[in-house]
């Protein structure tokens, strides 16, 4: 089945019933691989289509079984930003007392040096993660890790400790498709989050409400499901939850052990019990299901656009499944990725790719050379997504907020760079001269798409468009046909680079 271009009035089906096994074809496989991961090559699309849903979902979701480079705690340095040693502390005290400007300047210099080094490590960390997304054999693990990073948004800009950001990333990947309960329990003990939301300053008799507020507003329940009084009481439950160097500690002296009343429960509630109260709240599963839906299924244009009926029904089904499985995200996504709703034409190819998705997806799907990772990381930043530095605790808005006149050019020019090595500032001298292997892509298409086997140019264009933009008939297709007619009416490895520059400039290429 070749999908037709979407009509503006298309409405997705409300059915959460699984699609018929026979219905799962190449276009479904492609859709699944883009949404549950970062896109795929023709060979991968073919393989997954051949496997069928059961085996494909087992591969994607039960990724622990798939071999992948482990992410060890020792991958990055933990000692760049560290608490001062007793000697340093003493030295500082003495210099302050004696107004010893030279020593103070020396200490300041040392601190600045460490901060510089840490910013360097942060850059490496960002590039490492992008590379990981490109190379992973567990696409859904990376995709979910990105989801949780946006959900529990924490920024290096505020905490200025790259190792804590890395440790948080490990927490997300550990529980990526596991239980949200484990993540929520883990996040209140996560040094990066504690620092980001000032909980290290939250003491008995002087609680800081930041973490308690965001747990309810942004992480678990959503506005309207708690009162200001609940925040005040919950903040008390989290007092003393702090960290020492890289480890969580509960400072007993600073923890408020008095009786609290949070969301209708009373008792000597601590952080873990507060998390349990949140998980038991009726709003929690719907809140998380909504976030998952927006990320994996449909990025409603803006926050104020009401969900349509189908979305509401699907979200309620997901919420019910979350409750039934003790918040197991993998099992919930398994049902979603089988549903007729997920594969309805109004859902397929209608999500705006996020910047990481753009960068990683292009490399994974078309086999373009990965080129200079620092240019790619920079491009993602220009498109509005700096990993490890979301704009606020709300994370990235996603959807249409990614695209404006400036970022549209960055997106299109990123593709020119990947295809040709041309940076906006001119061709790169060395590394990026590597050519795009068009022959491989054409061979992959011929092996995968039946229409590509005829060897006829219009059929080949159909296969190419089906693969790159998800529909054989984007509005700009006649212009591509005109280009081909003007240039010899063939698609060859030689003219594929030029053709692909035009194809990736189609607005539809921004969608997946």
């Amino acid at each position, binding site marked *: 089945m070749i999908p037709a271009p*979407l009509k*503006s*009035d298309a409405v997705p089906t409300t059915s959460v019933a699984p699609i018929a096994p026979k219905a799962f074809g190449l276009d479904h496989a492609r859709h699944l691989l883009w949404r549950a991961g970062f896109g795929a090559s023709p060979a991968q699309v073919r393989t997954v289509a051949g496997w069928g849903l059961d085996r494909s979902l087992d591969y994607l979701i039960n990724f622990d079984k798939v071999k992948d480079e482990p992410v060890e705690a020792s991958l990055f340095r933990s000692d760049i930003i560290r608490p001062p040693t007793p000697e340093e502390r003493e030295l500082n005290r003495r210099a302050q007392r004696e107004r010893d*400007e*030279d020593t*103070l*300047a*020396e200490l*300041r*210099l040392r601190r*600045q040096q460490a901060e510089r080094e840490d910013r360097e490590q942060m850059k490496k960390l960002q590039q490492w993660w992008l590379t990981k997304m490109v190379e992973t054999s567990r696409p859904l693990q990376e995709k979910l890790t990105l989801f949780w990073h946006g959900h529990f948004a924490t920024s290096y*800009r*505020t905490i200025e400790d790259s190792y804590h950001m890395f440790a948080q990333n490990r927490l997300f990947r550990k529980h990526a498709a596991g239980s949200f309960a484990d993540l929520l329990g883990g996040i209140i003990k996560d040094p990066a989050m504690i620092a980001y939301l000032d909980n290290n300053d939250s003491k008995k008799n002087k609680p800081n409400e930041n973490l308690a507020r965001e747990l309810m507003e942004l992480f678990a329940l959503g506005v309207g499901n708690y009162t200001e009084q609940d925040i005040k009481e919950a903040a008390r439950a989290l007092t003393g939850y702090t960290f020492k160097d890289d480890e969580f500690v509960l400072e007993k002296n600073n923890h408020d052990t008095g009786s609290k009343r949070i969301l209708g429960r009373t008792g000597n509630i601590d952080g873990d019990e507060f998390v349990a109260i949140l998980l038991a709240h009726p709003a929690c599963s719907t809140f998380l299901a909504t976030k998952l839906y927006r990320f994996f299924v449909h*990025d409603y*244009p*803006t*926050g*104020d656009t009401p969900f349509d009926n189908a979305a509401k029904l699907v979200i309620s089904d997901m919420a019910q499944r979350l409750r039934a499985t003790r918040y197991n995200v993998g099992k919930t996504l398994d049902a979603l990725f089988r549903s007729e709703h997920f594969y309805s034409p109004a859902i397929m190819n*209608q*999500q*705006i790719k996020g910047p990481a998705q753009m960068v990683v997806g292009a490399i994974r799907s078309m086999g373009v050379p990965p080129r200079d990772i620092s240019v790619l990381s920079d491009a993602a*930043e*220009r498109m*509005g997504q700096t990993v490890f530095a979301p704009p*606020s605790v709300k994370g990235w808005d996603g*959807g*249409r907020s990614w*695209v*404006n*006149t*400036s970022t*549209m*050019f960055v997106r*299109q*020019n990123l593709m*020119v*760079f990947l295809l*040709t090595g*041309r*940076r*906006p*500032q001119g061709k790169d001298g060395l590394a990026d001269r590597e050519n795009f292997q068009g022959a491989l892509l054409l061979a992959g298409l011929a092996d995968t798409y039946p229409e590509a086997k005829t060897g006829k140019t219009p059929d080949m264009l159909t296969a190419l468009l089906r693969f790159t933009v998800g529909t054989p008939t*984007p*509005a*700009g297709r*006649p*212009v*591509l046909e*005109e*280009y081909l007619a003007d240039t010899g009416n063939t698609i060859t490895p030689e003219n594929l680079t*030029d053709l692909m*520059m*035009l194809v990736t*400039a*189609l*607005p*539809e290429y*921004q*969608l997946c």
Partner: protein
Amino acid sequence: MFDLNNPSAFTRRRFLAHGLTLASAAVTVPAFLQRSVLGLPQPAPGMTSIPGVPEERIVVVVQLSGGNDGLNTVVPYQEAAYYKSRTSIGIPAGRVLKVGDEVGLHPTMTGFKDLYDQGLLTIVQGVGYPNPNRSHFKSMDIWHTADTTATGDGWLGRYFDSQCCGYGAGESGQAPTKQAKAAAKIDNTQIGIAMGREAPLAMRGRSIQPIAFESADLFRWTGSAEEKSLTKYYDKLTKASAQEVAAGMRETNSDFLGRTALDAQVSSDLIRKAVATKPTTPYPGGNPLADQLRMVASMIHAKLPTRVYYVTLGGFDTHAGQGGENGNHARLVGQFAAAVKAFYDDLKAQRNDTRVLSMVFSEFGRRVGQNGSGGTDHGTAAPMFLIGPMVKAGVSNKHPSMTDLDSGDLKHNVDFRSVYATVLANWLKGDADAILEGKYMRAPVLKA
């Protein structure tokens, strides 16, 4: 036949059906695109798009990034305490360019002295905010959001929101409704242009995203540069992909992307054409701020309807080897002053100077005492500058005390939001109290 001067005569479909070429010139770009590309709605002749706001008024924000040392920019040369705390980097009293009775400009800032003498410059002394934050990021965000918690939308973004769609207060506010947007005839309008890799937080609001680019060459599809023959197909493809949304239908993501791609292409053509023209007067070379202001002047000259431009000069984080009369900081403030002077010379030659108010700020000043490395560390209050024929020229507000310090830092005596309030209320005719979410004294920096 339809009337080119009547904006309501156009719809996207008619425009496409008639096949007007986009690249030809601003006058033939249909009104719906002019609206959505570069500015506020183009008014019909004799009308303004926002009641009561003169269409021609422009604000240029100049950001000095890194924390400019206010004390070596506007020097309190009569204060013994100044020289006592700045033994090697202090500017000798005999060398400063005197403005008013108590302070003088850094000797390299001759351009600013000229502006001052011409009555085009006001210096607001001692600007800051309560509980100053000394982190670059945080303090910059505070200035951009006009909020000491550094959260929420940008202050200029909120201004745009308030003008187009009615502003709902802060983070908890309501996003503008579709009806409000439609009534204001604004269609994801791009009102501001920022020179830089990304739009500053200050300009980001709910309804409007500014255009940002470092140079006009970067604000285009680079496929054209790679293979020139592709340009014509790219243009056609972009046009073919922007389809009319039928009445009563929701705009799909695909529709939205098609429209945005066409907006980008048209604005790119207009902007690149504008900045390719030669400036009317010379600009200093090797001066990154001058390069940006030259582009701004050429866009103003080309009559782009853009209301706010944003330019940035970095490098002011002078922790070590800052220098005094000469050296690093001297070079920076000299560049800055020369660039702004050249900008106003150009605007005057264009006869656009009376339309353009410039405002200069940095995220903080620096500490009063110099440090052990011949530099200065992050401090607090510092001067702001406003430039243009509409300013109440002179030195405004008292210099903060050099002896009554807050642990080594100057105490601010005017809140930066008082300056914003005047710019918003008196120049841009906005509802300053609503936009700033509070009542701030209007700093008397503009002529009545």
